[in-house]
């Protein structure tokens, strides 16, 4: 989509939002059937990927005397293939997706950048620029993708606008929880006029009014459909259900994040708890979307880096390198563990410490975008300059 078309869409959205009653807004703003949908979910804090996609083998057991999970059996990792298993806390929620072939894992994933700094590495992934040149902090890769697509409406399910969405395409941010409320039309008009001459804030004010309206309408409709009940679940699970409800409508290029994965100390119990919530949250997201829209939807779960392969002295893990991405969706050709892999021995470790990165984040997303949106080389180059798309055959 060109900038012009996009602006037209935004104006329509705004006009619809300012028009008043909320039900028509939701209907006007429903995307046509078959619209591709994408949710990128960022686990901030570097989740311990070896506690999700669990390696098989004696080196893993040696490296983690207190944290290693057995393979199979009660409380053991559920075998997925000869080399890997799934943390059993994720089995109730995610194993059905795996068995239907709607879930794949990409181990040894990440960026080659190796500062092991959360903040630096998150930024690098979100900007999605080539390494080793001056960093361009004006655009994130999802904003560049939005600029290349037509008929896709971006939205961030975050309190702040994440770097990945920074850039010229306006992107609203709303957390779809019960707190989303309507702003009245008189006030909307006053705010819009007050900011008419404000070059830096004016766009956001209008975006915000439109997005609040849209999300409130979607959630209200959902509550009516659910027979007056609120959206079920608590915390993350409630939010992801709300996200699914909102993405049934127009928003189709979306981002969310979940924090709290930086497990340096006694990680087992707290990590399992978080993973359980996340797994149920993703299952709830798919359920809220409904089977038809789920077919058009791809969820990519990422994190900035992995953690040390060996546990540290406090039954936790420190900052590492390679991690595991997850790809889910109704149309995903999953039930597989894909991408370049290496047998996990001591010699295979990066700096005798953590997992190597064999599948680069920009190439992974480039390959997914190429398939999902049919982007040609020229347009892919604008999203990920200098990256070679990696076709994993997932879509």
């Amino acid at each position: 989509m060109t900038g012009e078309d996009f602006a037209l869409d935004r104006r329509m959205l705004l006009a619809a939002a300012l028009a008043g009653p909320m039900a028509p807004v939701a209907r006007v703003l429903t995307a046509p059937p078959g619209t591709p949908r994408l949710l990128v979910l960022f686990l901030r804090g570097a989740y311990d990927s070896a506690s999700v996609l669990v390696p098989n083998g004696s080196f893993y057991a040696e490296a983690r005397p207190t944290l290693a999970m057995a393979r199979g059996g009660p409380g053991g990792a559920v075998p997925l293939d000869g080399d890997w298993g799934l943390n059993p806390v994720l089995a109730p929620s995610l194993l059905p997706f795996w068995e239907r072939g709607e879930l794949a894992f990409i181990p040894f994933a990440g960026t080659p950048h190796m500062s092991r700094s959360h903040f630096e590495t998150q930024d690098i992934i979100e900007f999605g620029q080539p390494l080793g040149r001056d960093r361009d902090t004006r655009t994130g890769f999802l904003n560049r993708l939005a600029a290349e697509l037509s008929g896709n409406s971006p939205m961030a399910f975050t309190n702040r606008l994440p770097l990945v969405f920074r850039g010229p395409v306006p992107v609203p941010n709303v957390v779809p929880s019960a707190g989303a409320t309507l702003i009245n039309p008189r006030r909307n008009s006053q705010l819009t006029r007050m900011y008419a001459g404000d070059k830096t804030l004016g766009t956001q004010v209008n975006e915000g009014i439109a997005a609040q309206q849209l999300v409130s309408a979607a959630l209200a409709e959902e509550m009516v459909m659910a027979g007056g009940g609120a959206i079920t679940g608590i915390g993350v699970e409630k939010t992801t259900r709300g996200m699914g409800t909102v993405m049934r409508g127009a928003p189709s290029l979306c981002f969310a994040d979940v924090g709290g994965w930086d497990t340096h100390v006694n990680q087992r119990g707290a990590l399992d708890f978080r993973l359980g919530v996340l797994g149920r949250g993703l299952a709830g997201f798919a359920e809220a979307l409904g089977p038809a829209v789920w077919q058009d939807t791809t969820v990519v779960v990422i994190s900035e880096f992995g953690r040390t392969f060996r546990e540290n002295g406090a039954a936790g893990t420190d900052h590492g390198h390679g991690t595991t991405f997850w790809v889910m969706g109704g149309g995903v050709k999953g039930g597989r563990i894909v991408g370049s892999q290496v047998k996990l021995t001591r010699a295979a470790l990066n700096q005798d410490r953590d997992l190597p990165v064999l599948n680069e984040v920009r190439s992974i997303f480039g390959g997914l975008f190429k398939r999902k949106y049919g982007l040609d080389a020229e347009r892919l180059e604008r999203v990920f300059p200098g990256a070679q798309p990696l076709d994993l055959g997932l879509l």
Partner: protein
Amino acid sequence: MTLRNLIATFVGLTLLAWSQTHAAPPVRPVAAADYQLVDRLTWGANASELARFQQLGRAAWIEAQLRPATAAALPPAVAAVLDAMAGAAEPMGKRATEMEAVRYGAVHTSDLEEQRRKYAPYQMALRAGTIEVQARTSLRDLYSQDQLREQMTWFWFNHFNVRLGMPPLPLLVGDYVETAIRPRALGRFCDLVDATLRHPAMLIYLNNASNMAGRINENHARELLELHTMGIGSGYSQTDVQELAKVLTGAAVDLKTWPVPDPGPGAGGSFRDGLFVFDPARHVGGGKTLLGAPITARGYGEISEATAILCRQPATARRIVTKIARFLVADAPPPALVDQMTATFVKTDGDITAVLRTMIGSPEFEASLGTLFKDPQHYVTSALRLAFDGRMVSDTVWMARQLAILGQPLYGRGTPDGYPLDALEWSSSGQLGDRFKVADAIGRGAQWLFVVPGQPPAPAIPPELQAVVARLGLDARLAPETRAVLAEARTPREWNMLFLSSPEFMRR
């Protein structure tokens, strides 16, 4: 009665008389540049502060901000409230060790019902600690005359961030703010590095309390390099992180011993100061090398040697002054200003007041006034200072909740990098929408700020912002669009909401 009510009752009763009699002092209209200067160096200009500015004159007012007197910064009634809070009456160590014993007793109880009962006082103490540290800081931000010191206290806490929500930090963070940070907020940078590094809140938050020989945890060492001093990409390596982690081994926290022994060196190279302990048995022996400089093996003394190396790095000087300039000048501070501030930092061995003086005296600072986008802390504090100047807040929990809604809970940042400073991080569509709701709540009177338990809730009284704005001469400087919309307001509440939502009030 809840803890919140306990604190509110106390604050409320103590200050009730004051709140009813205290009125904002008269003030003449001020020049735009003076208003903006006061607005930038404080948590928000209001009639009280502008009256002080007019009384002292520009130069003396700036000097008073840079070198605040030690006493009389708070109205006596507010000072009395702070003095009466538990944190002031009782040393951190006493409460923390008592509560650690309670927690220990609870987790070593097998009966679940019994455990819950034993655990309750611990949870109460955590909640009370959280409310107390937020209340103390909020009251200072709203009423202290030493506004630049209070702003810099927030800035340095954010720079040396710890997460208030992590037990047992609610028992420690009050002391962290009051003893490690505020007294040094306008002092020497390296003193801040040393004081925060040794504080139990930091040692627990960044896991150094469990960093020991044979069980290295490099979290604190990494953040010391990456966040507290030099910054990413400034020339240190993974090896430097590991060497610094070795230097820090043995620096830990003792939550079990009370009363604590006298501070100072102990047997066999140990060292103690309050809850801070250095245990030579947990320290990695042998020499270390940090950034190419050898550090001789000598236990506790290695830590100060290492921080001195970090503080002297040119990368540290430039990074710290740039961050100060981003907080108080512009998202992208002019390079010439950063050069000057860096030179001052290096020349004065990291004297923060000297760096600020260089900044305030520069034409770049002058030119930037009125253009910085307020983060939520600045937005909420400045709105309350302007709207309720002269009316005493009796319950700060409502204020804390607004900051949480706007995504910047006080001392609540979960990650050690602290809250971001750039406008882009706080001005997204969703954040502005939330801000307009807060504007409305304040505009209608925010009655929850004035709750006094035991008395019927006061009705919401919309502040008379229109009159205040006119008195300060601000209305003439509003954009035509803002003035046109304000003229439509049907009620004081609507006028307040619109003014606090205006583009002008979003900036400082």
